[in-house]
């Protein structure tokens, strides 16, 4: 028997070695991949397990409970803020008739007596009497000076100017359109 007989031809023996190498490589890659995946999974599991989220949530609950003890103060403060806001809105929207009346009365000379005075948000009707046409003129000039000043009077219309020949009194009726 010849021990030198090699039934596997040389070329096929070379291929076998190559296949063995490829198999070894594939096995190594698969093992490494599996290990890598397992390691990644363990790492991420540990990261999520070590997260302080639970203790933070407990802390938040405790603080919310503590805040409730000061609930009354918080409510009062919020109510005050609400009231102040509403009051500011009201104060900015009111007609300030006191200022309107004050401005008008300042324009009326002392020699004039006011018969009637009708004021609303858009207009003012004033009826005044005087024995002096000069005083009426002064009144008209004073009011005219106010037109366009301080966003107060838009225009003035003299509705009527009559004289009573018996008493010598002049009666003027004015319509003031307000801004």
């Amino acid at each position, binding site marked *: 028997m010849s021990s030198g007989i090699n039934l596997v031809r040389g070329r096929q023996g070379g291929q076998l070695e190559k296949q063995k190498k490829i198999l070894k490589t594939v096995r190594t890659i698969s093992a490494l991949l599996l290990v890598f*995946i397992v390691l990644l999974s363990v790492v991420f599991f540990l990261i999520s397990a070590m997260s302080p989220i639970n203790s933070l949530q407990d802390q938040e609950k405790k603080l919310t409970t503590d*805040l409730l003890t000061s609930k009354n*103060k918080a*409510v009062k403060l919020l109510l005050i803020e609400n009231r102040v806001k509403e009051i500011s809105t009201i104060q900015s929207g009111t007609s300030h008739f006191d200022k309107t009346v004050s401005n008008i009365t300042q324009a009326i000379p002392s020699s004039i007596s006011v018969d009637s005075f009708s004021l609303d948000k858009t207009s003012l009707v004033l009826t005044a009497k005087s024995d002096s046409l000069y005083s009426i003129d002064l009144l008209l000039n004073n009011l005219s000076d106010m037109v366009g000043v301080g966003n107060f009077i838009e225009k003035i219309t003299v509705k009527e100017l009559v004289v009573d020949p018996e008493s010598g009194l002049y009666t003027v009726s004015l319509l003031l359109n307000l801004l």
Partner: protein
Amino acid sequence: MNSEFKLNSLKHLFDENTIKILYHRHKAYVPSVVAILLSFVLFFFVILPQVQYVFSLHDKEKEVKDRIGVLEKNIRFLSSINETDLESKLKVVSLALPPEKDFTTVMSGISQASAVAGVSIGDFIFQLGNISSNTSPSTSKASNNSAKAEINVPSIEITLNISGGLDSTKRFVEELSKGFPLSDVKSIQLNGNSAKVSIAFFYRPFPPLQLDGGTEISPLSQKDEALIQTLSSSVNLQPLQDLQIPQ
């Protein structure tokens, strides 16, 4: 003919025997290939969701930490507030703008203004009647209507007769503007020595409040404090009523 030949070649390629031969030839690779495929599957279906979970956990931690910061700030701030001071401020602003229709306070305000202005109030009748937000017309000298003022705040409208000339009426209106509750004169009609004045007295119920732990409670601004200070200086010396603080 060609297509038939190709089909037959394909059938020959994938027939059972061929597959068996291929399997026996390469069966050593099967576990490794399966392991690689499994790794990919695990990566996409386990690892990636875990990564997303960790990131979302991080975001959640940040949110909770922010809320904790706000809560601690609110607790510190509220602890530092003097409750008595708060109580008195609330009473002042509630006198200026009552939370409900209060005819007693309105009458008190009118009396105060007339006393200071030196005018006398004619007979007026409060028609209580239907205390609701619907207007109720009245032919009497004084009527009260609950209606929304132009500035969109509920109000009680009162028309009253006062005796006095233009100067007295001016003083009366001035005193009303300084007094409580807040009011707005709607019209003045003066004839000789008597005047008819229409006034709207404002009120506003307390709003429903919801305390949200996540919202920062801030102190009153300087402007608000200044307004309260101004109102405090105008407050009438009348018994401060107990207020129903909404829970």
